[in-house]
C-alpha cells in the first residue's frame, strides 16, 4: 500500500492513463504536422477520429472486414476524405487569417457529429476486441489485458515511425523545408500544393487510426471526438506545436498524469490537464517545446 492506495489500483489507472496518452499523442502529432504546413488548426480532428471508429464499425457490420482490415482501411478512407476536404475547401483559405481555417473545420466537425448523432444516437455502438488480442496475462502485481498492451505498443511504434519519417528521411526534409518556406521549396521543383494535400490526409489518417484503436476500448460514439479534441488542444498548448517529439512526449505524459490524478484525487481528473495548461502558460507561455509565437 502506498498512501493508502493499492498497487493494483495504481497500476490499472496508470495503464488507462497510458492508453489515453497514446490517443492524445497520436492526435496532437497529426495536429502538429497539419499546423506546420497548412498553418491551420484542424478542429475537425476529433470528428475525423470519430469517423475512423465508425468506418471500422461499418466495415465489420456491412462488409465483414474485422479489426485488422479496419486498421489499414479506415485510415485510408478517412485520409481520402481529408484529401477531398483539403482540395475543395481548405485550399481556398490559403493566405487568409488562420482563424478562418479553425472556423471552417469547426463547422465540418459539427456536420460530421450531427450526421452520426442523427443516425446512431448518443449512446454508442459496441465493437469487440479482435480474437487474437482477447484475454490478458497476470503480471503478478496486476492483470494486463492483451488488447491494451497492444494499443500502447502499437501507438508508440506509430509515433516513432512518424517522427523518423519527418526528421530523418528525404521526404521529411521536404516537409520541414516547406514548413519554413513553401515558395522556395516550390521553386526547387517540389509540388507543394500536392504535398499540402498529402500532409493533411496523413494527419487525419493518424486520427482515424487512433479512432480504430479506441473503438474496442470505448464504444463507437458520435461524441467520442468532441471531448477528446478539447483535451488535445490543451495538450497542444502545453507542448507547443513546434516539435514532433514534443507532441508525442507531452501526449503520453499528460495521459499518465490524468490517470494518476484518478487514483489520488478523482474529482480533479477531468480538469487536471487544463490546470496544467494554465500553469504552463504562467511560467512559459510559448509551451514546453514551442517556439515563441
Amino acid at each position, binding site marked *: 500500500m502506498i498512501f493508502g492506495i493499492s498497487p493494483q489500483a495504481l497500476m490499472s489507472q496508470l495503464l488507462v492513463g497510458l492508453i489515453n496518452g497514446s490517443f492524445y499523442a497520436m492526435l496532437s502529432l497529426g495536429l502538429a504536422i497539419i499546423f506546420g504546413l497548412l498553418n491551420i*488548426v484542424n478542429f475537425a480532428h476529433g470528428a475525423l477520429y470519430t469517423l475512423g471508429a465508425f468506418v471500422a464499425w461499418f466495415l465489420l457490420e456491412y462488409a465483414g472486414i474485422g479489426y485488422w482490415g479496419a486498421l489499414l482501411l479506415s485510415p485510408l478512407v478517412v485520409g481520402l476524405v481529408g484529401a477531398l476536404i483539403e482540395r475543395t*475547401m481548405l485550399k*481556398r*483559405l490559403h493566405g*487568409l*487569417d*488562420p*482563424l*478562418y481555417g*479553425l*472556423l*471552417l473545420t*469547426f*463547422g*465540418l*466537425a*459539427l*456536420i*460530421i*457529429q*450531427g*450526421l452520426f*448523432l*442523427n443516425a446512431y444516437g448518443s449512446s454508442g455502438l459496441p465493437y469487440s476486441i479482435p480474437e487474437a488480442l482477447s484475454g490478458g496475462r497476470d503480471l503478478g502485481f496486476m492483470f494486463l489485458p492483451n488488447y491494451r498492451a497492444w494499443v500502447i505498443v502499437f501507438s508508440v511504434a506509430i509515433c516513432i515511425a512518424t517522427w523518423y519519417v519527418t526528421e530523418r528521411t528525404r521526404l521529411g526534409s521536404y516537409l520541414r523545408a516547406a514548413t519554413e518556406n513553401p515558395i522556395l521549396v516550390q521553386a526547387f521543383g517540389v509540388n507543394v500544393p500536392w504535398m499540402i494535400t498529402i500532409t493533411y490526409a496523413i494527419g487525419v489518417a493518424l486520427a482515424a487510426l487512433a479512432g480504430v484503436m479506441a473503438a474496442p476500448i470505448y464504444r463507437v460514439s458520435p461524441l467520442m471526438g*468532441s471531448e477528446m479534441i*478539447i*483535451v488535445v*488542444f*490543451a495538450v*497542444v*498548448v502545453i507542448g507547443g506545436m513546434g516539435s514532433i517529439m514534443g507532441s508525442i512526449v507531452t501526449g503520453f505524459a499528460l495521459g499518465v498524469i490524468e490517470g494518476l490524478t484518478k487514483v489520488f484525487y478523482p*474529482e480533479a481528473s*477531468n*480538469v487536471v*490537464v*487544463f*490546470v496544467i*495548461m*494554465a500553469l504552463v*502558460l*504562467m511560467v512559459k*507561455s*510559448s509551451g514546453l517545446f514551442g517556439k515563441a*509565437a
Partner: protein
Amino acid sequence: MSDAKSTAQAVVTARELNWRQGIPIAIMVVAFAVAPLFVYPVFLMKALCFALFACAFNLLIGYVGLLSFGHAMFFGSAAYAAAYTAKVYGFPPELAILTGTAIAAILGALVGALAIRRQGIYFAMITLALAQMVYFICLRSEFTGGENGIQAVPRGRLFFVLDLNNTMVLYYSVLGIFLLGFLLIRRIVHSPFGQVLKAIRENEPRAVSLGYKPNQYKLIVFVLSAALSGLAGGTKAIVFQLASLTDVHWNTSGEVILMTLLGGLGTILGPVVGALMVTGLENYLAQFGAWVTVVEGTIFVICVLTFRRGLIGELSRLLKRPL
C-alpha cells in the same frame, strides 16, 4: 488655418458617420419595440439575450481580432450566479443580474490574464480549454444542481415596481437591458479606447511603437466582453427561470461565434441580425433533433468559404456605409 479647417471637416464627417449609422439603429429599436405585436415575445426575448451576447463577443473578435472559443463560460457562469442568488438568497432581479455580471467580469479577468499571453489560434484553443474546465466544475459542483441545473428561478419585481411575471413588462425590461448593453458597446467602439483597439488589431507592433501597451488594452476589453456576456447570461436566467449546463457547454460558445460570423464580424448590427437568424433557425429546427448541428455546421462552412464579411458586412459594402 488649413489644418484647423481639415480638422473641422473631419469632425463633421465623423458626426455625419455617426448620424448615418444612427438611422439603421433607430430602425432596429423601433422594430424591436413593435415586434411583440407580431412575434411570440418569449422567442424575441431569447433572441435579445443572444443578440447582446453576440455583440459582447463581437467586441473581442470584431475590434481586437481575438477569437474566443469559450465565451459560454461567462454567459453560463453569470446565468448560474443570477439564478442562484435570485432563488436561494431571494435577490431582486436587477441585483441578481448584476451579481452574474460581476462574476463573469471576475472570471474574465482571470481567464483573460492567462489567454492574452498567446495570440491567434492559441488564444482560441486556450479559451476553449479553460471554458471546458469551467464546464466540468459546473457539472460537479453542488450549487449548480448538476444535470438538472437551477430550475424555477423567481423573476421577481424589477426595481421593486415592475412585475416581471407579466410577459410584456418582462419583454420591455429585456429590451431595455439589451439596448443598454448595445449602446455601451457602440460607445466603446467609437471612443478613443476603441480606436486604439482597432490600431492593435491592424498592426500590433506599430501600436507598441506608438507607446501603447496592447496587453493592457486586450485585458480591459476582454473583461468588458466577459462582463457584457455575463449581463446577457444573467438576464437569460431570469427570463427563462433556468440556468443549466447547456449555458456553459462549448456548443453555446460555437453558437455565439456562428451568430457573429453570419451577421458580420466587426459590424455593429451584424451580431444582432445573426442572433435573430440563428435563434429562429434553432426554434424551427428544434423538432428535428441533431439536424440543428448539421445545419449550423453547414452555415459555418458556407460563411467561411463564400461571404466572410457576413450578411451585414456584405450589405454595408454594397451600400458603402458602415452598419
